């Protein structure tokens, strides 16, 4: 066994340190494979950022026109965490060859998704808290969680690990937002008529979402292709 601390230039001048692969300790079964290349991931991150930025903006617009105080205060936290999500996605873009000025780049997958965002943001009057919250917490955020999880399953787990880490943190917080939204909507929808209003709104927004192809423009898992 060699007692050399540093390798020399000849075969017998190796060190004595034990050889491990980068995946030996702890055992790591990840493989180099993924559905998205750098450009595809960059486009998806811009798509995700578009949804997060607009969601933050519309929630900000609604705070003043929602009469229920716990909804106002609850949205305050959701707005901040959604802004942080958009910020983290923006910081990933220069790392994906989008240029150093790409920090604020957002891009709708298509005009139908941009229209969907405007449709979700449409309710304005103070008697429409159910419609406001249902579009975001029953439909949009659950959709985003689904797509973020899909991305994390399908992207290269080693090469695109920074995106995976960002999305994993976002997913954890979004699950909390969904739970908060469900609790609020359940409390607000006390009667069958109010429950029906919530269902109708969610169905309407879900149909627009489906027609748009979702945040990346390709909704069905089986139909996913490189963007």
């Amino acid at each position, binding site marked *: 066994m060699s007692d050399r601390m540093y390798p020399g230039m000849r075969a017998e001048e190796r060190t004595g340190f034990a050889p491990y692969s980068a995946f030996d300790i702890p055992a790591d079964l990840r493989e180099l494979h993924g559905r998205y290349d750098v450009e595809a991931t960059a486009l998806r991150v811009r798509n995700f950022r578009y949804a997060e930025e607009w969601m933050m903006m519309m929630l900000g617009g609604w705070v003043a026109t929602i009469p229920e105080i716990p909804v*106002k205060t609850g949205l305050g*936290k959701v*707005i*901040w*965490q959604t802004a942080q999500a958009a910020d983290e996605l923006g910081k990933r873009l220069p790392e994906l060859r989008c240029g150093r000025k790409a920090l604020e780049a957002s891009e709708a997958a298509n005009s139908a998704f941009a229209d969907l965002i405007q449709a979700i943001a449409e309710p304005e009057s103070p008697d429409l808290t159910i419609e406001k919250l249902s579009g975001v917490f029953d439909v949009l955020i659950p959709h985003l969680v689904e797509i973020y999880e899909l991305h994390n399953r399908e992207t290269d787990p080693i090469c695109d690990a920074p995106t995976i880490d960002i999305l994993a943190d976002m997913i954890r917080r979004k699950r909390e937002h969904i739970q908060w939204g469900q609790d609020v909507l359940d409390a607000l929808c006390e009667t069958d008529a109010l429950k029906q209003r919530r269902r109708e709104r969610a169905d309407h927004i879900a149909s627009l979402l489906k027609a748009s192809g979702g945040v990346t423009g390709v909704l069905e898992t089986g139909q996913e292709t490189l963007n």
Partner: protein
Amino acid sequence: MKRFIPHEELARDSRFVRQDPAQATVLASLPDDVDTVVNVFEQFGPLIEAGVRGTSAEPLFDELGPGFMISVLNEPLDPEAGAAVPRLLLRMHGIFVGELQALEGAARSIWDFPDAPWEFKMNMARQCWDEARHIQIFEKLLIHLGGHVGMFPESTFLFEAACSDDPAMRVAGVNRGLEGLACDVFRDMIRFAEKTDDEVMKQAVDYVLADEITHVRFGSEWVKEFTKNDPEHFRKTQDFRREVDKRFSFGGARSDREDAAIPIAREDRLEAGFTEEELEELAQISGEGPSKQTLMTAAKILHDRFKASQAAETTEATS
């Protein structure tokens, strides 16, 4: 969803009633003349009365008459003074609705200015969370002191005065005017909590004050950024801030005068980015209102006339 909403469209639940914002405007423009102050408040009497009926301010009105707000605003909070608890609750409720409007102002800034720089939106988003926590803190403190949400009428003049359609003026109004006033009020509340050994209030308000200094700093930085290379825009923004500061001084109740109920928190404001020059100007603007002597004399006349009128009504009813 439209951009820019008037203060009348701030949504509230069934506990709230509104106060006519004209009262605050009038208070900010009163001259140092007892007769004028008395005449103005007598003129506003029916409006003030209608606004307080059915709220916890009703006993204060019944005791002091239409000038009750003069007494409440211009006397420092004193745990030993008469009606100390209702006055404290009135102040605390005013802070609660002020936080509500600060949240709404910051949140609307995110929606109203979609083309603003991303860092601006981030700052406003952070402020939303902070103001949301402040609402929760002041609801807790209100209950801690024996009060409840909606017990007094809400004046929406903070939102009305501060929420301009121009982003530089919006941050000058909300982040420097409204949040600067918050620094003054919270420093005063901390002093009051120390006097009454109320550790719960002292610690909570101290945390809130730390947040407000950050919000004022946002405002100081964004006013500079939005008016960069545009001296005329900067001048207009400063004029707007002066106008807001004048209205938020409540006729000198918040000022650097020796008799001020709410002194200007100079150290906190300096830390938040106000310059010495701006503070001198604020001291001058806020001290321009009627003297405390004028206001308290007017309040006494209003009280005496109100009591005389009540007595006359009683006599008439019994005869």
